[in-house]
Structure formats: C-alpha cells, structure tokens
C-alpha cells in the first residue's frame, strides 16, 4: 500500500491541475487523506469568505481519482463518467481535507464517494461527491 501511495503522489505531482490546486495525499490510520492547503484564489464569495463550489468539487474529484488509483493497479488515471456534488455547508476560506470511499471497483466501472471537511471534525461533512469512473486501462 505504501508504494502504491507514492505512485498516487507521483501521479498528482505530474498532473498539472493537481499542482495548480496544490493538493497532497497521505495515509492516516490506514486511510487516504487528501489535503488542500488554503489559497486566496480558491474563494468564490469574498464577502462571506467562502470557497468556490468549483474548487471544492475539483478537489473532491481528484480525491476520488486518488482513491480509485490507490485501490487498483491502474497505470492511467480513471476517466470520470459523471459526478454529483452535494454542498452541505458553506466551505470557509481555510484548509480543506477529504477522504474517498470506493464503493465498487469493477472491471470497467468504479463508484466512489468523496467527503470533505474542515477543522478537526471529519464527521462534519462540508461537501460530498458521488462519482462514476471508467477504470479499464484499455479505455
């Protein structure tokens, strides 16, 4: 798992958009935790200091991709088929954390949920994403 995690990080490091976001991944108690260190450019509403929904969504999509990558032997990143993002609370202008739960990893499709939170309470989900990916390397 450890070497696979380093492959996930290598993939994120060589993915321009993941670098643009500045996200990173680490294992905590056997679980993949993604972190998005706050930057001013992530804001969508300056007046209420809220992150842009598109930024939170992008981070969760990358977290879901990292989650599938970690549990598979894929060489190429999984291709997204669709995503549904549920905005449960206003995401504040501070660091964002996320975990991915791979519900199903089949031969061709994967169904993944990713949840984001802020501060030290992972159960207080700020934004949740449900995604389907195409996972066959044959495309």
């Amino acid at each position, binding site marked *: 798992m450890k070497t696979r995690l380093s492959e996930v990080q290598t993939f994120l490091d060589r993915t321009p958009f993941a670098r643009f976001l500045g996200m990173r991944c680490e294992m905590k108690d056997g679980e993949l935790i993604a972190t998005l260190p706050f930057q001013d450019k992530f804001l969508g509403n300056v007046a209420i200091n809220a992150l*842009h929904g598109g930024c939170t969504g992008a981070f969760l999509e990358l977290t879901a991709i990292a989650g599938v990558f970690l549990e598979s032997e894929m060489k190429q990143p999984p291709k997204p088929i669709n995503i549904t993002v549920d905005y449960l609370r206003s995401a504040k202008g501070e660091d964002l954390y996320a975990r991915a739960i791979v519900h199903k990893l089949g031969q061709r499709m994967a169904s993944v949920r990713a949840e984001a939170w802020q501060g030290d309470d992972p159960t207080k989900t700020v934004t949740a994403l449900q995604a389907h990916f195409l996972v066959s390397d044959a495309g």
Partner: protein
Amino acid sequence: MSTGESQNEMLLEVMQAHASRIMESVPWAQALGLRLTRLEKGRAFAKVAWREDFVGDPDTGVIHGGVLTALLDNLCGVCINTALTRPKSMATLDLRIDYMRPAEKGRDILAEAECYHITRNVAFTHAWAYHESRDKVIATAAGTFALNDISRWASGNAAMEMASKLLGGQS
C-alpha cells in the same frame, strides 16, 4: 409591461453593461480565466481558454473535469440572476456533471447555462460545455441553487451589489 418584467429588463441591462465585473469579483473564476461572453434573459454564455496547468491527464493533455465544474457551476449561478427581478446571492445546493467526451488539447471551451425554473428559495439550471456548438458537448450540468437576499447574505460580487442598489434593493 408588468413591473416584474421591466425590473428584470433593468437588471439584465445592468448585468450586460457590467458583464466583465461579474466574474472579476470571484477569485476562483479569475484564477481560471473564466470570461462571460453574453447575457440574455435566463441564459448566460462564457469561455475559458485551454491552459497547460488545467491538464488532468499528463499523457493526453486532456483538461481536468474540475475546470468544467467551476465553469458550469459559476455560469449556472450567473444565469439565474438574468432571470430575476432583483439580484440575489446564491449558494449551490447540488451540481451534477456528465462528461460526454474529453476536451481537445489546446482548444477554448465555450459554455452556456439556462435557468429553467425559479421558486422563492430555489433555482433550477442546466448547462453545456463544448468547443463549437451544443451538438457536440464535452459536458452537461444540472445544478440547483438556494437563493438568498443580498441584504442578508452578501453576494461577494461588486457588480451584483451595485445592480441591487440601482434597482432599489434593501442591501
């Protein structure tokens, strides 16, 4: 013409006159270079140029879905205001994106959004992203938004706050 219709036309005119400022006060839209290209009643059009740092698959140069999420989410939000009689501040409740085909490397992405139903508290939208026309879409979106009074919940958008004042809003 009813008061509502003339107020909507006034709001639309203010938004059209200050279209560039609507995206300017949204940092993430600025960071991605989202540009509004046209506003009509209940519809908004935008453009984003391909950039190296948007790439989600380094082997193919295909743009990451997150860029489309931001583009379509933001545009859905904007198109709601073009259908209102008074600007409102809004928060995305949920957004569904279907990825039909990858965006081509090096090409601009165009998008349009349509607000097809509004209630007192919620607005329903659809959006499309493509290179040339809606006949060949890259992605489609369905978004629902919670509407809030600007007077109680700041929109964070200078252009919309100004429109609200011009139209005699309580902000």
